[in-house]
């Protein structure tokens, strides 16, 4: 795979190093002369000097044949523009943008730049996963595919507790794919009885979280409704 990485800060440099280590061809772009010279000692011809939002710099890096463009500079406007140009001018199919300020996520959405990765959101996601009082955890979101996989712990008094899978009143567009009990996961059958304390994995259409929470963790609703 050929990858163009814009911005050789800590994120960009380490990404480039890892990708090269995995056998990918990489061009890293850095606008700061000093930083470029430091990195060039290690990465040699895999790093190029220049402003990655300039078209000729992107073209010199061979953006036309890039399989993936990753914009990880410290400036959100630059990351937005680089990804927009990569996708719309050079028809690069896969892009990844870094969001430095989570308040700017809305602008990445507005311009259709995705995935847009925000460290703040990732940490929040981890907290959501680590803090058990949150009723429902998003394991995977694929907004373009209209698909989500969530995990929910069955609480005391939940309508689903003590019912078999076929008896549970699941909303249309959702399906139980796995049950974790005592640290072990298994795929339930129609007659599998869901118990309190089970962690249930479901695949669902976006927007069904509230209906799911009502069935499995009605008390956790307030905290998990994000």
């Amino acid at each position: 795979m050929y990858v163009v990485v814009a911005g050789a800060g800590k994120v960009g440099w380490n990404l480039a190093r890892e990708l090269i280590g995995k056998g990918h061809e990489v061009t890293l772009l850095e606008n700061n002369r000093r930083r470029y010279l430091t990195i060039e000692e290690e990465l040699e011809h895999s790093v190029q000097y220049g402003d990655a939002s300039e078209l000729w710099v992107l073209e010199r890096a061979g953006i036309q044949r890039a399989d993936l463009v990753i914009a990880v500079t410290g400036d959100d406007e630059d990351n937005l523009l680089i990804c927009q140009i990569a996708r719309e001018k050079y028809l690069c199919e896969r892009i990844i943008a870094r969001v430095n300020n989570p308040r700017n996520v809305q602008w990445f959405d507005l311009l259709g730049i995705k995935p847009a990765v925000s460290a703040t959101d990732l940490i929040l996601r981890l907290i959501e996963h680590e803090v058990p009082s949150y009723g429902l955890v998003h394991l995977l979101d694929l907004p373009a595919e209209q698909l989500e996989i969530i995990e929910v712990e069955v609480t005391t008094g939940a309508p689903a507790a003590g019912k078999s899978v076929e008896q549970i009143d699941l909303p249309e567009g959702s399906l139980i794919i796995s049950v974790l009990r005592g640290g072990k996961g298994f795929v339930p059958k129609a007659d599998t009885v869901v118990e309190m304390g089970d962690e249930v994995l479901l695949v669902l259409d976006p927007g069904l979280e509230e209906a799911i929470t009502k069935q499995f963790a009605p008390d956790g609703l307030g905290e998990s409704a994000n």
Partner: protein
Amino acid sequence: MFVLIVGAGRVGSTIARLALSAGHQVSVLDEDPLSHERLDEGQSTSWEDAGGRFTVGHAIEIEALEEAGIDDADVFIASTDGDNTNLVIAQIAQRKFEVERVIVRVMDPARATWYSQQGLHTICPTSAAIGEFKAALEIA
């Protein structure tokens, strides 16, 4: 007409004064409070007394744009010193706030050309300067 100008440098502040004296409503947004001085420069009355608005804030912040009145803007001018900032906020004005006329300054001719092909009204001072030099040198 209500004109919102983002970036009160030499160009932005001059256009702001011209638009105001031409009878338009003008609001200026800049992240540097001191840029206000450029609006008052050489004027007998202060910018606000003359009827202008001035907001301090960064153009990519939605609150700053709203405070500066983007919801009522008929014209949006992006004239900060950053090409990428201008191109992003111009698209925000166009797509999110549906401002009717959006004009964006882009110093880099290559980006200016490509974004104008995408439907943005871009103005490229670099291309203008090159044109003037060519005329002065009498080369085609």
